[in-house]
């Protein structure tokens, strides 16, 4: 059965230069293992690859039930010089939550 990440987790996007940082946090700590299994760095790169031009690195923070995705070359060259409307990539948080995984 497919589930949208939006059902399982919440997300906040942060930015540093041309890097977008996406915090994916399980609503229920019991779902962390499922997220850790299904939401790989590769899966995020494939899902957001039209925006994220660089590498996606995943940090696991099981103590907080969270996965931290650091997406390089994701903000149109950088927050301060991007021509995008959402130069900070704030909306990437909810774009990530559109990802569907096997659950």
């Amino acid at each position: 059965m497919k589930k949208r990440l939006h059902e399982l987790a919440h997300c906040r996007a942060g930015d540093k230069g041309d890097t977008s940082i996406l915090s994916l946090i399980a609503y229920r700590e019991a779902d962390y293992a499922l997220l850790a299994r299904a939401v790989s760095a590769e899966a995020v790169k494939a899902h957001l690859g039209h925006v994220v031009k660089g590498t996606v690195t995943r940090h696991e923070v099981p103590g907080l039930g969270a996965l931290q995705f650091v997406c390089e070359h994701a903000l149109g060259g950088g927050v301060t010089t991007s021509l995008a409307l959402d130069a900070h990539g704030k909306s990437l948080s909810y774009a990530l939550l559109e990802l569907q995984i096997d659950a």
Partner: protein
Amino acid sequence: MTVLRIGSGAGFSGDRLEPAVVLAERAGLDWLGLECLAERTIALAQLRRLKDPAEGYDPLLARRMTPLLPVAARNGVRIVTNMGAANPLAAADVVLGIARGLGLALKVATVTGDDVLALLSPEDRVLETGGRVGDLGWLVSANAYLGAAALLPAIESGAGVILTGRVADPSLFLAPAMHRFGWDPADADRIATGTVMGHLLECGGQATGGYFAEPGLKDVPDFARLGFPFAEVGADGDFVLGKAPDTGGRIDAMTVKEQLLYEVTDPRAYATPDVVADFSGVRLAAAGPDRIAVSGARGRAQPRQLKVSIGYHAGWVGEGEIGYAGANALARARLAGETLRARLGAAFAELRIDDNGCTSLPEKDYRDTEPYEVRLRVAGRAGVKDKAERIGEEVEALWTNGPGGGGGARRYVREQVGVVSTLIDRERVQPQLTVKEWRGEKATA
């Protein structure tokens, strides 16, 4: 147990004014921090200072301080803020002028020395690109991130208001705790815990339900009256995060986790001038309504170099928007976009065309549904302002030269300042303290 109460009254330069006053009035604070200096904000402030040497501090300085100073004086709350931006000394004069007008005795301390533009070499490396600083063109500003240690003499001076330029955001909140409890700067675990405290506070309402709410799923009570956070810090560094009494918002593990991880590129190595902090072992425990106890941060020795934010002139951006609604709205918006590309593409190497309402934010429609209305947006970069104006002119000309039914055309032009980073050896950056005082004599004397 003695605790130090530090509040957060602003999370960015344009933040709401009222929550800081509410905190200073009701939260029993020792200190109120106001974090108002994003990466680009100091470069924009420097541009203002270049036009007028008495300018270059935060544009909202007087509006924030005027209601705050009497409340802070009455309740014994000391204020620490980076609203000095590119000109902390001029900011001190503004704050003292307000105090004089209000008849309040006040000592103001400024911390400078973050401006390192004169210390940069064209050969210095840009961290983001690997290129040379010398290739950035017109440099506007270069500011090193000072740490908590740079603030200690200002705290020691007894000043009621401390004004800085570029200081690492968490350090603004860490410094009062270091001073009160006499923490050793080399006690990395304690400094890391204080850094977690500062990181949770630095964005104001983002820790109390701001930038969090989603109806039905992440509801935030009494959202319009969102209260800002404070920390009750103990001598061992562990702290409780709470929010101003009788305000809206919420503090729980969900809101705190979002803010704890916010903008952290490595949760095991969050580097500030004070420490390299490891957030992975942080424990969050409920400690009453809207109260979370935080412990478990670990630290390693501070980095040998300081980060420097460099602002450079990146040209002008022209933008234009026009909306289409109803049948074939998307097709008409796309026709408008193609038409503009044909009319502008030869003159603009960088041209971005979006269908707002459809694909402009994440640039991809994950739901594959056609919206009732679409707002076409075009943006392009130019070296000079007149050329950037052409973008909006061509969008506006779609009134009579574009697809049917376009409405609500708007055009904008703005100067763009880019920000990149480099590193500087810590020893080369020398913080300076200046103390100014208004003793409270009658203004008419």
